């Protein structure tokens, strides 16, 4: 019925939208649109002088990894039907600080375990709350953001924490045949998430919950357990990103990871994972993250300043949203 009134109301000005409608309705047209976009970007990248140079590729592989890890966690949350979390960025900052404090106290391995465990626990609790009483995921994540930020501020009075012995953690920083360790971690995290999603019963349940919360509950899926798992994994991903940042810079404060939530959702959207849940993959998000990073590097190499990068990534995300398939009538 909405459709009918819309058709009548459509002005000639909206005709430009009909091409978009066609793309969104037909799956194969969408696939073609994706490939055309990727090919255009590749052509643009290859024609940009200096893109294939070692420093450019190295910085691409490094910068994409920090946000990329968070984006993997965000992918799980999105697929499970909970749209997005706004607390993952704060989790990155907090786990980076925990990594440094714990490394100073008991060595890098202890630091890593402490950071990952805290990140996973803090985020898993949110998942359990969302799953058990169906609290709104965005509100819960905003509340968690405030709590994490507040508690971190209370503990770190001076703002930033520093590694006492840099060599201890920099031993974890390595390169495999010119590939920075951050990118290796990102590939591992991606593979792990993809494996969970596609190869395990838990993964099936994530998709099921994303498709229909009620249906999943009706067939006996324990919603709070699945969502605690989903959010726990997302927290792990965010904590991994935090540990990577801490290892890289030898210091940490709560500005680490600020804005990563939005960048991560951007990668999820550009990758083409369905915003309403039930569909998508970690691999797609990896492509989405790389797509955005490549665009930013091209802009940088072609002499555009930061502000144009912001504008273009905003436009790319908006366009990616327009390509999302439409929602059903009922909400």
């Amino acid at each position, binding site marked *: 019925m909405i459709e009918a009134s819309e058709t009548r109301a459509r002005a000639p000005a909206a005709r430009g939208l009909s091409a978009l409608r066609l793309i969104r309705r037909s799956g194969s047209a969408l696939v073609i649109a994706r490939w055309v976009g990727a090919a255009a970007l590749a052509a643009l990248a290859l024609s940009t002088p200096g893109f294939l140079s070692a420093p450019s590729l190295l910085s691409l592989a490094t910068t994409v990894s920090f946000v990329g890890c968070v984006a993997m966690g965000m992918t799980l949350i999105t697929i499970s039907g909970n749209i997005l979390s706004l607390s993952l960025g704060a989790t990155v900052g907090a786990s980076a600080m925990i990594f440094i404090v714990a490394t100073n106290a008991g060595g890098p391995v202890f630091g890593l375990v402490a950071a990952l465990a805290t990140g996973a626990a803090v985020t898993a609790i949110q998942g359990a709350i969302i799953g058990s009483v169906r*609290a709104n995921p965005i509100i819960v994540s*905003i509340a968690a953001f405030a709590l994490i930020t*507040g508690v971190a501020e209370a503990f770190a009075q001076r703002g930033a924490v520093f590694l006492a012995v840099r060599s201890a953690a920099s031993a974890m920083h390595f390169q495999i045949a010119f590939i920075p360790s951050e990118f290796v971690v990102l590939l591992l995290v991606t593979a792990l998430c993809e494996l969970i999603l596609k190869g395990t019963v838990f993964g099936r349940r994530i998709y099921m919950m994303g498709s229909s919360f009620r249906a999943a509950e009706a067939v006996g899926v324990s919603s709070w357990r699945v969502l605690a798992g989903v959010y726990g994994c997302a927290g792990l991903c965010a904590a991994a990103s935090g540990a990577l940042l801490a290892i890289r810079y030898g210091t940490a404060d709560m500005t680490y990871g600020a804005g990563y939530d939005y960048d991560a959702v951007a990668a999820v959207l550009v990758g083409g994972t369905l*915003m309403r849940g039930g569909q998508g993959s970690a691999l797609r998000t990896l492509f989405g993250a790389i797509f955005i990073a490549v665009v930013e590097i091209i802009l940088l190499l072609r002499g555009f300043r930061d*502000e144009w990068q912001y504008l273009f990534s905003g436009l790319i995300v908006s366009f990616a*949203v327009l390509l999302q398939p439409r929602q059903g009538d009922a909400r």
Partner: protein
Amino acid sequence: MILERLRSGSIAKPLAVFTAVVAIFAAVDGDHMRFLSGSTLFSTLETFATGGLIALGLGLTMIAGEFDISVVGVYSLAGCVAVLTGAQSPVLGAVIAMAVGAAVGIGQGLIVTRLRLNSVAVTLGGMLTCNGIAAVLTGNQSIAYPNVNVALAIAQPILGPLTIRSLIAFAMFGAMAAFIAFTRPGRDLIALGSDRRAAVVAGAPVSALIVVVFAFSGLCAALSGAMISYSLAAASPSGLTDVLLPAAAAAILGGVSLGGGSGRPIGLMFGVLTLSVLRSGFNALGAPPYANDVAMGAILLGVGTLDGPDLWRRAASLRLKLAEMRNEFAKQD
């Protein structure tokens, strides 16, 4: 029983929370009179003026069953636009900023309704794009507003402790409350938030209303951004982004649930006032800066959990389980 009644009252609940917060602060402060003072009242109202309009716009989209993240971007973009265009006439600058905000809202509303997309995703793109435009307009740096007289005038109390900013904010709340209570489109707005399909069947102009709500949300965020930039005599493309959290918190405290349909502007107003009192109250008592974050997070988490539609079902099944366990024990004995 009392809890359940409070859950459903759209104005009673926010008012109760507000009163409780004020009472707690007054009790903690005791005879010091740090909290119950003119300066606390003034700073509460100023905080209300900034956050209130954003919460009103965001809250209305939530009442309609949508969610407008782009208020963050519109807020900072509008601040930059107002500073850039309003050097001669601040009113003109504010009007241009509001027009930009409304245009962004209309565009997003059209996309949400025409293409039937998730509003969180659409407005996320809108937010990032607005931030990008603001950065491009200002060359990604903070810009100063040369007309200092305007900055002084806008921070001057003109009616008791009320400034132009807080008066405008209260007026917008009043106007919206009247619109929802007394007009047909206002009723339709509540209806489409409660049950969109039913609203369509009943003949409410659903798509048009959603576009209007997004336009209003953009307009409110823009007005708030323009006024805060004038009062600070500066605008920056990224410096003002910490507004989504308090706005969403205020909306939830104001009785709005994300399912849509519940919550009214007056309740929203008390939600914003609660958070404003919290902020200025902690300041007045000399609490450390993180106290506000922790308190706000805890309250939001609490209210968000109590709002969960499955809470009572879950509690009932838990009670049942406990009773069974007790029976088991009784048998064993």
